[in-house]
């Protein structure tokens, strides 16, 4: 187990270095942040730009800048944002919980919906219910998520006035963003659960379980679901990672102050310290989630635990 964790830790370090190196290098090819700061100002001279570059540290060679960033990571000093000089740790500290909370609730919505629906579709394969669930899932997959978001805002915020159209506040502010994400995730997940369930339901031990006279719900949820849990957990885990990256659009539409918005603004402003920090934190999270997925395997499947 210890060897496994060390391997994972080294893997995480490698991923962070590879990704941040790529991102830091690439973003520096797209123009000078000093010029961005001067936008709206009048004439600027090379001297003006130079003193801004010195203040930002972008006058240094790329390698030096990157080593400074790594040094900062080790000492947990993420530096200051180029736009305004807010400490990056504060920006991340505000944005990360906002994104995690939204991603977590969206996942929860999706799991709560997709498992019973997927099982229902599998057990009534080919019947009307199954067809209806599959059509719903196809519709959900075809919706662009921002469009669904705008429609929800139009209905629930403007026409009915029940929910706030944007921003993060009380429980009511989570409903529309989480539902938008949740519905779209559900559409995919229902199909996955259905397929996994169909495979399992044909297995002999299910027949045995039924033959023992177990109740249908015990057969489905204790025997069948647990046996098809491995692919589902893998998929949900990966999906959560993907969700963190893909949440940008939803965060924009709902003006959600999360990591997606932070990254989006940082790219726009060529705010290297913020961008590097966001990428680092997200890659660490994704590596961490994969680790949790591996550990979860052991919990649901004793055969893996003993290996």
């Amino acid at each position: 187990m210890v060897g496994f964790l060390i391997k994972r830790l080294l893997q995480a370090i490698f991923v962070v270095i590879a990704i941040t190196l790529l991102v830091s290098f690439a973003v520096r090819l797209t123009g000078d942040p000093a010029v961005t700061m001067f936008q709206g100002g009048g004439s600027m001279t090379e001297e003006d730009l130079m003193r801004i570059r010195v203040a930002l540290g972008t006058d240094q060679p790329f390698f030096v800048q990157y080593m400074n960033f790594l040094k900062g990571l080790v000492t947990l000093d993420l530096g200051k944002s180029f736009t305004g000089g807010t400490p990056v740790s504060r920006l991340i500290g505000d944005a990360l919980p906002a994104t995690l909370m939204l991603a977590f609730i969206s996942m929860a919505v999706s799991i709560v919906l997709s498992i019973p629906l997927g099982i229902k579709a599998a057990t009534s394969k080919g019947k009307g219910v199954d067809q209806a669930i599959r059509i719903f899932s196809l519709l959900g997959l075809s919706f662009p998520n921002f469009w669904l978001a705008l429609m929800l805002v139009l209905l629930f915020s403007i026409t009915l006035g029940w929910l706030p159209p944007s921003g993060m506040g009380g429980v009511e502010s989570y409903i529309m963003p989480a539902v938008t994400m949740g519905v779209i995730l559900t559409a995919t997940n229902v199909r996955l659960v259905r397929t996994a369930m169909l495979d399992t339901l044909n297995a002999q031990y299910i027949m045995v379980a039924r033959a023992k006279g177990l109740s249908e719900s015990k057969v489905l949820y204790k025997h069948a679901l647990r046996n098809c849990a491995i692919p589902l957990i893998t998929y949900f885990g990966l999906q959560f990672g993907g969700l963190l990256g893909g949440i940008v659009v939803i965060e924009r539409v709902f003006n959600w102050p999360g990591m997606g918005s932070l990254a989006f603004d940082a790219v726009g402003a060529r705010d290297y310290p913020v961008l590097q920090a966001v990428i680092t934190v997200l890659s660490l999270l994704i590596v961490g989630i994969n680790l949790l997925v591996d550990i979860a395997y052991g919990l649901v499947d004793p055969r893996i635990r003993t290996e």
Partner: protein
Amino acid sequence: MTRTQAGTKSHSGAAALVALALTSVALPAAPALAAGKMTISTPQDPGSWDPVDTFLVQWAAVATNVFDGLTYRGPDLKLVPGLAESWEELDEGKRIRFKLRQNVKFHNGEPFNAEAVKFTFDRLLGEQGAKGPQRSNYTAIESVEIIDDTTVDMKLKAPDPVLLTKLAGYGAMIVPPKYIQENGEDNFNLHPVGTGAFKFVSYAPKVNIALAANPDYWGGAPKLSELDYRFITEPATAVAELQAGRVDLVIPPTIPIGMLPVIEADSNLQIVSVPGPTVDALRFNTRDGITADPRVRKAIIMAVDRATIVQSILAGQGSEIANFQGALSFGYDPELKPLPYDPEGAKKLLAEAGVKPGSTLQIDIRGNDTTMNEVTQVIASYLQMVGITATIKPYETNVLLNDIIPQGKTGAMFQQKWGGWTFDYDNTAYSMYHSGEKWNPYEKDAELDRLLESQRPLTDRAERERILKDIGKYTAEKAYEVPLYNTNAIYGVSKKVKGFIAPPDNRLKLTDVTVE
């Protein structure tokens, strides 16, 4: 860091939902409209509230309420006394003596006096100012000398005719010496203190900044008790908030032309618009290709019907221009007429210049500028009618601005959007046409350089205006750009808001505004 930990912990299971529910019970979302509160949607968080740090108009939309300058310029664009009651020019414009307002205090109780003025400009021109962009606007100032507690002399290296205007905004806002020295520069970025009509209350990066009325304001207490500026980037989201009644005012540049009908159709809302400082032009690559020939450039200008573009695509929210400035700009010449729409004349000129029908050129634009995307498509079809095939190349805004234009890597034409808050043509003309300027990758014109330099130190307004008009004429004659239009600053306003006067320059001062 504590917040990170809280967040990480809370994502670990059902505890999160409980925690969430508890938070919301303890702190229900405040009703957006308490009495005397106004909520404003602004498209960008400047990240720092320190006057020396930024050129963003979104900074000014907030900070005009927190800080004061020695002079003040309101929505009528007239210069009036601010923290200085009066001033006089001495030594042929190389020294300005300011008489300061008495009994004014900063929000922290610190007195405003000559010391504060000196501190402000020493800081702007010193080490702290060197880290930010604002300093470059105030380099005419050599030093500030304290004469007595309420009198200061500003010594200038050379007269700067625009200086008194510049003292009304941005980098010249007067800041509290003791507060900054005691609490540090980093603190000041996030907790601004000024002498303005509203005091800083709280700031959550990327979320909002809240202000409260300063009842002791020297200009009279504001009518509203609270201001809440929310940072909302997406136009559709800002407009939805306005429609839902949770935002009272959406400031520019947020609302695109395409969304005007949504607001106009809502009986609770209205559009208020004024001509702003921003002008749009398609500039030419005057160095390479067919547009190196001035005849071709003129032909292209003549091929485009700008009146139709302003009416149909801008929905009338703009006005045609003859050179790179709008009617509010100092240096604007009402006599100067743009080249007329004349496709036949354009074809003749093109033939004369030896440009064969079917020639191609590329127009570089900002990809996220929806209005300009439509406008250039129309322009491309106008050019098609005179035998030029244009391809439109959308760039990410900062790539275009930081790389493609300064490096001289543009196509034959490229979008430039410009507008200095000082409304002085010098700001635009010098940056666009003087040799070696970042925004002037293609031209080196000794005559134009001479004209541009000659007006800079002049304190004689009439003489300076005459030269600026000459510059305008000269650039129109050389056809350095297709002058398109001066766009309006568009505000989306709830009808509950009373007494709102739209400032052309986004420097929103909300002292006299009320919300029903």
